[in-house]
């Protein structure tokens, strides 16, 4: 790199020296062009104002939790559209600074031209999240200042109007919603009313009444059933009693049988005692055995005798006062049972009826619950909207009275004193530097285009030919004089150019 740089510097120095006339000519021309450009370059004045804008819209806090408002994406773009509308530009053109000298109105063509000019000169940019800078550039500082001021005023007024319209539309929107919910609520109320009138049973107490009734009926049924079973058991016992009146013989026979059994038990005890001392062949034992056998035969005969009269099928209807009384009691019991049965049936029917009623009541209740739910939801929404409508009304009133305005001028436009952008001084400085660089560049470009060998290094590397020496011619005294003259001329050209620049700067400073 250093080698290349050294080569570059050497080549440029040599070429500038050789082509000094061309270099001088280009230098003078470039310097002159820059000087003229600097002299005639228009002074552009820029006036700017900063407007503070609350990013939140009026609708968003109002509708928070209820609805989501659309976000304003690019505030400065909207501001630009607002400022550069034809109405705004028409207002700007009404200002004195823009008026024509003969005070006539602008033709549509002129208006279009001026409108485009203004649009090109206006800059609207957002600096920070809620600051908008409006600036206007012009050669006339007063024009720049007045135009910026008017545009800022227009922007603020239009924004205020916009906000009023916005809050009004927000109020109107909520009001509209309120009326819609009101209608819905009314419909729900009517639906409930109609249903209730259709289902009178479906009073809130109906269900508990039915339940109570059902419990009562069930209790009654249980009582009837208890009474029925008691009467039935009484009937059975009376019937048994009536049957027991014809069995007097039987009881004596049983008593006899009992006696015989006791005798047998005594004889067997005695037999056991005898067997302790004697064999079975002992006469007392044989006798006792015989006695026991005969007694057992007597018991068998007695049992047979007792059972025989029934087998014979002889009716044994008891008669007498007790039997009569029993019979009448049995009759009464049977009547009672019949009565109780019919009553039980009646109660069962009633219970079934009550169950059907209960099912119907449940259906109605489900329907009413649904209707009531709609009603409640609508009612809640309606209540909320009513509150928000009142908020919106207040916001709208605040905007109308301009008390809650969140758009204000942070920094008002001012009359610019110093010109902005590329200025005389900049061009002069650029001219001083660039007028040196351009001839050097041209000379170097010519060298490149020329394609002639100028680099020692190239000869070494490219051709691989032995380089015996690198020589040069000494300058003759005559040449030395010429060279000195050349340096003097070049220096004086630079001095003349710089003097010209200094003179221009001096003139400019003096105005």
């Amino acid at each position, binding site marked *: 790199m250093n080698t290349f740089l050294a080569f570059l510097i050497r080549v440029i120095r040599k070429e500038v020296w050789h082509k000094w006339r061309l270099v001088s000519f280009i230098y003078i021309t470039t310097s002159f062009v820059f000087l003229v450009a600097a002299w005639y370059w228009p002074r552009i004045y820029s006036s700017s104002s900063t407007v503070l804008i609350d990013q939140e819209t009026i609708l968003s806090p109002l509708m928070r939790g209820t609805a989501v408002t659309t976000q304003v994406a690019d505030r400065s773009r909207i501001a630009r559209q607002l400022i550069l509308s034809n109405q705004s530009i028409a207002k700007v053109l009404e200002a004195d600074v823009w008026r024509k000298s003969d005070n006539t109105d602008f033709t549509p063509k002129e208006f279009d031209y001026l409108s485009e000019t203004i649009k090109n000169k206006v800059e609207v940019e957002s600096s920070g999240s809620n600051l908008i800078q409006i600036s206007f550039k012009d050669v006339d500082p007063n024009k720049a200042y007045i135009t910026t001021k008017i545009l800022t005023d227009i922007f603020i007024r239009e924004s205020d109007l916009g906000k009023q319209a916005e809050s009004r539309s927000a109020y109107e929107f909520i009001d509209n919603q309120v009326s819609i919910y009101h209608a819905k609520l009314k419909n729900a109320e009517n639906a409930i009313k109609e249903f209730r009138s259709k289902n009178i049973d479906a009073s809130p107490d109906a269900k508990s009444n039915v339940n109570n009734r059902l419990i009562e009926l069930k209790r009654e049924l249980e009582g009837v059933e208890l009474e029925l079973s008691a009467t039935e058991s009484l009937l059975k016992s009376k019937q048994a009693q009536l049957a027991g009146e014809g069995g007097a013989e039987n009881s004596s026979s049983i008593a006899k049988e009992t006696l015989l059994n006791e005798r047998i038990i005594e004889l067997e005890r005695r037999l056991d005692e005898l067997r302790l001392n004697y064999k079975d062949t002992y006469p007392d034992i044989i006798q006792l055995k015989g006695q026991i056998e005969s007694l057992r035969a007597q018991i068998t005969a007695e049992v047979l005798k007792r059972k025989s009269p029934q087998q014979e099928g002889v009716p044994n209807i008891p008669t007498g006062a007790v039997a009569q009384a029993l019979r009448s009691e049995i009759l009464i019991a049977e009547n009672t049972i019949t009565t109780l049965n019919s009553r039980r049936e009646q109660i069962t029917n009633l219970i079934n009826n009550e169950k059907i009623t209960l099912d119907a009541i449940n259906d109605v209740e489900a329907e009413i619950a649904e209707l009531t739910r709609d009603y409640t939801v609508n009612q809640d929404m309606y209540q909320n909207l009513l509150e928000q409508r009142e908020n919106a009304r207040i916001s709208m009133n605040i905007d109308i009275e301009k008390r809650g305005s969140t758009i204000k001028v942070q920094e008002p436009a001012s009359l610019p004193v110093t010109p902005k952008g590329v200025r005389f001084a900049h061009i002069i400085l650029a001219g001083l530097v660039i007028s040196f660089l351009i001839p050097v560049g041209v000379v170097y470009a010519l060298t490149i285009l020329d394609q*002639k060998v*100028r680099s020692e290094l190239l*000869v070494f590397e*490219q*051709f691989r030919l032995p380089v*015996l020496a690198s020589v040069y011619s000494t300058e003759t005294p005559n040449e030395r004089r010429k060279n000195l003259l050349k340096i003097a001329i070049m220096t004086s050209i630079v001095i003349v150019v710089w003097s010209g620049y200094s003179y221009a700067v001096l003139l400019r400073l003096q105005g």
Partner: protein
Amino acid sequence: MSILEKAYLKSLSENENDKDKKIPRKSDEDLLGINNEVTVPKKNTQELVSSRKGISRMRQDGYFSTQELAEKRLIHANMKDTRLLDRYRNLRTKLLSLCKKENFITMITSVVPENDSSLVAANLAATFALDEAKTAMLIEANIHNPLLNNLFEYRHQAGLIDYLEAEKWQAGEVLCKTGVQRLRYVPSGLPRENSAEYFTSDRMRDFISELVSRYPDRYPIINAPSIMDSADARILIDLCDKVVLVVPYGKCTEEEIMHAAVSIGEEKLAGIVLNEF
């Protein structure tokens, strides 16, 4: 300024040169000779002494003054720009080391026609002549643009071409002395067409060998026209031992350099001299 006045001034300068001549300048030369000519074939002391004696017997009047040398851009031992002097000495040394042969013939040619190669030839010859033990002979073979004639002030002098054309001329007659010590010059002669035919003649070869063999330490240098421009240069290549190619700054392309180098041939090409780089 009238001719008379010029003549008077010249006679004055010649007188000054006569004075200069007396000032011994040996020490410098000896030192440099030792320093620079390491690779040169060594001569024994006896030879060196006899050579110097022979040379010192040469007629040495009418030398250029320092001012004249400066005006002619010729190098000399007392010049202020020692850097350039050293470069020419190095060039001489390299040539001596390249060619083992005594009295080898060097041809100077340029890639493209330009004036400065003649000056390189003259200065190279002057560098050879700096050494008191050596003499140089410069032959102007650039018939169409004989710049050396002007330099050594032999504008209308019969020279090389006249010798080659007419047999009445002796080699010694066209050999002129110059304003530089120990440097002899053969002017081109009067301008002619078709000079190439003369260079191919045996007489040209004889001429050079005769002049060269006159003194043992005489280094002939032929200033040829540009190799790209003239056929003369190509013909002359055959006659000489080494060719030095002068590459001027910013005047020739890479292709031209390659072309010239190829034309000369690897065997004859001693190397290139960069001029004004």
